C-alpha cells in the first residue's frame, strides 16, 4: 500500500491496558500553570523506569477551569492503580504544591478514587482546612504565597498505552520534520499524550537482549548504523533515519484516532518530504490485547 509515495506496512501496533487519570492544574497565569505541568510530567517517558508515562494534554482557558484561572490538563498513565496513586502523590506534592499560585483538580469524575490532596494536606501541619463544596471535598493548605487548594481525590480509569508509529525517513532532517508534524497533528486531539521528549523516541526497542538481565534492548533491525551488520535489517540505503512516536490514550478509539492523525500528517509530507515508509511496533500480537492495524486505520479514516 503506497500513499503519496509512502509505503504503509501491513503491520500493527500492539498496545496494553493501563490505568490513567487526568489532572487539571490551574495557576495565576498560564506561564505558571505550564511550569507546574511541565515539572509534574517530567521524567515520565516510559513506565520501564519512570513509574508512569505523563504529558500535557492541552492548555485550558480561564472559562474551562473550576476556579476561573488559566490551566493545563495533564494525563498520567501507569501500569497499576497503586503505582499511579504513588506517582500522582509524588508528582503533585513535589511539582504542583511547590509551584507558585497553582491549584490541582481532578479532570475525570467517574472511576475509582485515588488520593490527590488527601495526603498532601498533612503538609499544612494542622493548619489545613477541608471544604466540601457541592459534594466535592477540597483541601486548603497554607503556603507562603497564600494557600494551595487541591481536590481530595481524582478518578482512575482503564486506558490504553503503547500505541505507536515507526516513521522511516530519508535522513535526520526529514525524520525530525515528519515526526514533528505527526506529533503536532496528534496533540490537537483530546485524551492522548505522546510521553517521550517532544513526543518522539529514537531508541525504539525490541523484546529481549543478549544480556539475561535485560528484558528489552535496541531495535537493531531499524538502526541505520547496523545496516549490513545486523542479521536482519529494515534499513535500506534510502531509509537512513527512523523515529518512533508512542501514544497513550484514555480509550482504544483515542489511540487509533491519534495514530491516524499522525499517519495522515506524515503522508501529507509524503516521499517528497522524506517519509518513505510507516511501520509499527508489535510483539507478534500475543502480549497486548489492543492491535492497531495501520492499513485498517487508514481505510476506516478514509470512509469517515
Amino acid at each position: 500500500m503506497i500513499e503519496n509515495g509512502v509505503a504503509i506496512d501491513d503491520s500493527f501496533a500492539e498496545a496494553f491496558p493501563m490505568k490513567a487519570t487526568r489532572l487539571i492544574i490551574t495557576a495565576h497565569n498560564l506561564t505558571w500553570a505550564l511550569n507546574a505541568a511541565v515539572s509534574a510530567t517530567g521524567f515520565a517517558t516510559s513506565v520501564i523506569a519512570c513509574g508512569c508515562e505523563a504529558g500535557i494534554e492541552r492548555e485550558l482557558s480561564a472559562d474551562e477551569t473550576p476556579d476561573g484561572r488559566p490551566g493545563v490538563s495533564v494525563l498520567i498513565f501507569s501500569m497499576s492503580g497503586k503505582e499511579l496513586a504513588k506517582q500522582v502523590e509524588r508528582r503533585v506534592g513535589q511539582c504542583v504544591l511547590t509551584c507558585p499560585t497553582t491549584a490541582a483538580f481532578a479532570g475525570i469524575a467517574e472511576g475509582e478514587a485515588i488520593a490527590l490532596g488527601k495526603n498532601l494536606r498533612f503538609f499544612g501541619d494542622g493548619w489545613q482546612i477541608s471544604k466540601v463544596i457541592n459534594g466535592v471535598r477540597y483541601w486548603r493548605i497554607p503556603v507562603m504565597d497564600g494557600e494551595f487548594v487541591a481536590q481530595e481525590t481524582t478518578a482512575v480509569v482503564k486506558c490504553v498505552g503503547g500505541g505507536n508509529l515507526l516513521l522511516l525517513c530519508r535522513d535526520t532532517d526529514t525524520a525530525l520534520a515528519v515526526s514533528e508534524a505527526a506529533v503536532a497533528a496528534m496533540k490537537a486531539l483530546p485524551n492522548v499524550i505522546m510521553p517521550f521528549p517532544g513526543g518522539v523516541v529514537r531508541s525504539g526497542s525490541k523484546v529481549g537482549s543478549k544480556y539475561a538481565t535485560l528484558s528489552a534492548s535496541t531495535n537493531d533491525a531499524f538502526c541505520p548504523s547496523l545496516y549490513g551488520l545486523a542479521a536482519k535489517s529494515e534499513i535500506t540505503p534510502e531509509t537512513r533515519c527512523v523515529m518512533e512516536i508512542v501514544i497513550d490514550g484514555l480509550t482504544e478509539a483515542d489511540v487509533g484516532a491519534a495514530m491516524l492523525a499522525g499517519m495522515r500528517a506524515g503522508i501529507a509530507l509524503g516521499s517528497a518530504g522524506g517519509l518513505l515508509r510507516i511501520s509499527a511496533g508489535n510483539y507478534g500480537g500475543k502480549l497486548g490485547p489492543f492491535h492497531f492495524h495501520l492499513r485498517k486505520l487508514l481505510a476506516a479514516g478514509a470512509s469517515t
Partner: protein
Amino acid sequence: MSGWRLTLRQAPALRVDMRGVLPAAVVGLSSAQIEQVRVGHGNALVPLGEFFTVKADDNDDALVFEGDLSRFDRVGWQMTGGRITVNGPAGHYAGGCMGGGELQVKGHAGLLAACEMAGGQLTVEGDAGDFAASTLPGSVDGMRGGTLIVKGNAGARFGDRMRRGTALVFGNVGDFVASRMVAGTIGIGGQAGAHVGYGMRRGSVVFTGATPDIAMTFVPALVEARVFWQLLARDLARHGGPFAQLPARAVERHLGDLASDGRGELIVAR
C-alpha cells in the same frame, strides 16, 4: 405514580407531631389508609384524617399540604427521599434530621428548621425562626449536610454547631449566627445581628450585604484565597438572589474565632 394532596380541614386545638408522615411511608397506601396514619396531637395519637382531607394527585409521589400548618411540627422529620411541599407556613422542626429528598415550605417555618439536617434540601420561602440549621437541644452536632435555603429572614442562632452542608438566608439573620460552628458554609444576603461567628472553630460565613460587626477575636486575613473563593462563590451563585453575582465580587476575610479553634472565616463580599 401519583402523589397526594392533603388539605387542612381546620386548625388543630393543640400542636401536631407530623413525624412519620413521609412520601416513602405512604407509598402503596390508599387515601383511606393514609387518613388512618396516626400522628401525635397533644398526648393522644389521632388519625391524620382528623386534620386533613387526602386526595390523590398527579405530582410524582410527592406529598402536598394545603393550609396553615404552623401548628404542625416535624414536617419532613428524618425524611430520606421524595418530595414534600407545604403550601403555607409550617411549624417547628421542619426538615429536622432530614437525610435526603426535598422539602419546600411556601410560607414561614417555625423554630429549629433543618436542625441536624444531614442531606437533601429544605427551602423556606418565608422566614425561619430561631435555631434554624442548628442542633437539637443538648446535642453536640448541628446541621451536618444538605442545603437549607431561607428566602426571607432567619432568627437567632442560625447554624449553631453546624458542621457540614450549606445554609443560606436571602434576608437578615438574628444574633449569634454561626455560633459554635464546626464547619460548613453559611451565606447571608442581608444584615446579621450581633456576635457573628461566636465561638466558631472552622467553616465559612459569607456576607453579601451589609458588613457585620466583627468581634476582636477575629483577625483580618492578608490574602484573598482566590481559588477557594471562586470554588465557593460559583457554587453559591447557583442559588441566585443575593448570591448570584458572588463570583465577580472581591472579598475580605476575617479569621477566627480565636477564642476557639480559630480556623473559621467571615467572608465579606465587597
